[in-house]
């Protein structure tokens, strides 16, 4: 009894006890699956058997042109989403923060609303919007301007456009809220003193807002990288399944799903998953490094 009490009241043990729930869930749902994925990636796994085959899965990945397409799609999708979903929401947040905008709350709710719609629902809507038939919404718009209907979901560029439009529509509000929070934490005094020094609106934005938003920007970019690399459901819904013409909508996770579940080859799929982890980690590390994250703080 005393022993238990001494542990409970011990200054040294307390922090560990507090983080124990987190450690346990982390090891069950993250460390354990991760380790078994690493082991499985060196195996050939079928129904009721598994054997070690060394690096064969990884060697196969090197020559797998479909996998290369998937990596290309995922990486480009990620880059494009970042190009769109960082500056635009920042601008939105800036405008929402300005004194001259009326009904801010209404605007905020409206741009946030799409994030609450399930990807399954919005994906199906976008599928119909981008239908290749003349009755599809996007083709109707084209026809209105006198342009011929196009096969949106059969070409790489237009297919990527559909995916990006869905992502923009969905995530615009969320990212705007992040930046809004970042903006409101900037001390108003800074702006006032800048005004006293005669700075114009642009100078205030460039020299105060932008630098002080850096932590928010880095956070949003990092989660965008992971979100982009992990994209699967959007493509799955827009193409009505995991297969798109010439694999234009195939992502790394989509390929993992195709190999592991659809083709019942979990060993190879594990290798795909690990490569995804490495690629995502590498991109974000390079980004964090280049934005000065790992540098020692300026004195």
């Amino acid at each position, binding site marked *: 009894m005393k022993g238990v009490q001494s542990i409970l009241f011990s200054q040294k043990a307390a922090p560990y006890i507090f983080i124990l729930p987190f450690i346990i869930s982390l090891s069950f749902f993250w460390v354990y699956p991760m380790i078994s994925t690493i082991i499985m990636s060196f195996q050939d796994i079928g*129904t009721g058997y598994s054997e070690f085959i060394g690096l064969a899965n990884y060697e196969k990945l090197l020559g797998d042109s479909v996998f290369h397409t998937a990596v290309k799609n995922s990486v480009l999708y990620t880059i494009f989403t970042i190009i769109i979903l960082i500056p635009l929401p920042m601008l939105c947040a800036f405008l929402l923060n300005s004194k001259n905008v009326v009904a801010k709350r209404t605007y905020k709710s409206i741009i946030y609303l799409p994030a609450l719609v399930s990807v399954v629902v919005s994906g199906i809507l976008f599928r119909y919007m981008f239908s290749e038939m003349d009755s599809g919404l996007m083709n109707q718009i084209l026809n209105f301007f006198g342009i011929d209907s196009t096969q949106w979901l059969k070409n790489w560029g237009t297919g990527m456009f559909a995916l990006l439009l869905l992502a923009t529509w969905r995530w615009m509000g969320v990212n705007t809220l992040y930046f809004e929070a970042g903006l409101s934490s900037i001390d108003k005094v800074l702006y006032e003193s800048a005004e006293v020094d005669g700075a114009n609106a642009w100078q205030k934005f460039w020299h105060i807002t932008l630098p002080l938003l850096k932590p928010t920007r880095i956070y949003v970019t990092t989660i965008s990288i992971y979100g982009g690399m992990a*994209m699967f459901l959007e493509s*799955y819904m827009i193409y009505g399944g995991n297969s798109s013409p010439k694999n234009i909508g195939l992502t790394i996770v989509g390929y993992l799903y195709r190999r592991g*579940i659809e083709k*019942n080859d979990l060993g190879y799929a594990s290798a795909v998953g690990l490569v995804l982890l490495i690629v995502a980690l590498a991109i974000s590390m390079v980004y964090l490094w280049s934005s000065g994250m790992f540098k020692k703080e300026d004195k």
Partner: protein
Amino acid sequence: MKSSKKVLTYFLILLMAFFIVGCSSNSSKEEEVVGETTTVGPEDGAKLEMWLFVDLHQQFYTEMLNKWNEEHPDKQIQINFTVYPYADMHTKLTLAIQSGEGIPDMSDIEIGQFPNFLDGEVPWLPVNSYVEPYKADLVSSRLDAYAKDGNYYGVPTHVGAMVMYYNKEILEQYGIDYTQIKTWDDFTAAGEKLKEASNGEVFMTSVDTGGADWLTLAMSQYGESWVEDPENANVQLKSIENMLTMQQGWLESGIAEVTPGGQIDTEEGYATVANGEVAAFPKASWYMSRFTDYMPEMSGKIALAPIPVFEEGQARSNGVGGTGTVIYKESENAELAAEFMAWAKLSEEGGEKIWDILGFDPVNTKVWSNDVITHNPDNKFVQYFVNNPFDVFLEIQDEVNLIKTVPITTTINEAFNLTTLNEVLENGADVKEALAAAQEEVDFEQE
């Protein structure tokens, strides 16, 4: 001190990001696996669990089960049916087998998915002895479709003979007699005539970028198969090349269009047929139910006929699609389940229900020549079509080949349905080059 705090902060950001990655891939899995469960049969009967992926099939099994329980008071069965969406059911079954838990006593498996479930140690009961009493009357190629090492693991549902569906109304309007079309040359000529007469309003047919039915048909006609040697698949075949070249020609001269939706068995495809945009297309017998279900307004306009051939004497059909029912060998009531399933699907009375309820050409050919069943005036398919479907089935009875589905078939279909057919039919790529590229993709998997 300060900098280490900062590192910690970014470590936490990274960690959160991992969780976001984790969560987003989890959420995709949540939507699946919602099935509808129905229990049929007496409480004191042997209890069986069955998974299916088509709602209508449950109606068929239910009728057969009630009949079985009436006729076999000593062998009462109660089945708990669960209907899942197609992909979900197969995924769930794969996972059940991999984990060895929650495997149903019986399950329907689609023919294209079947090889996945014969991999490694087969968990299913060989049904050879249960099939034996009916075997003489069966189209044997359908049993082979679900066989491994001489054991039959799946009980087939139908033959799936391909026929040509002609829109008789349109063709008559433009003065074309479809019964005179015997070869693809005749078909092409009719297409030219139709284009002229309708001012290009109506296409003779539509070609698929999202399905390989035209290609398996061509292989059957030439007696070839891309999986002649299952370990060494070869897609650079004369039959495929001829078919694709002919289709490219049709597209160029404007007598065919690319099927909206990739193939005719899609919502876009039904719209194409119902609008009278195409005058003919080849599809398996089971497409008849698509007409009665989705295009009731076309009743009395559609006729069935044997498919044209490249050279006279070639096979005029091919068996497409299918559902094999497997029985889990560890099931307590495996033997009873096998006996029931073989009777339900392969006996003459079962065949009659398969035709009446599902509109399939049953595997038991005794049904085909039983006029009482096939010419039953109350049958919706007999009422719907211009001619009697079984007149056509009997005519092509011995010409229904089977291109076997083997493990590499998934890869071949993927290569063609995603890339090759799009390259050839949408982008006008050179057929030989496209086939060489497809071969490369297939070879990559079978090294």
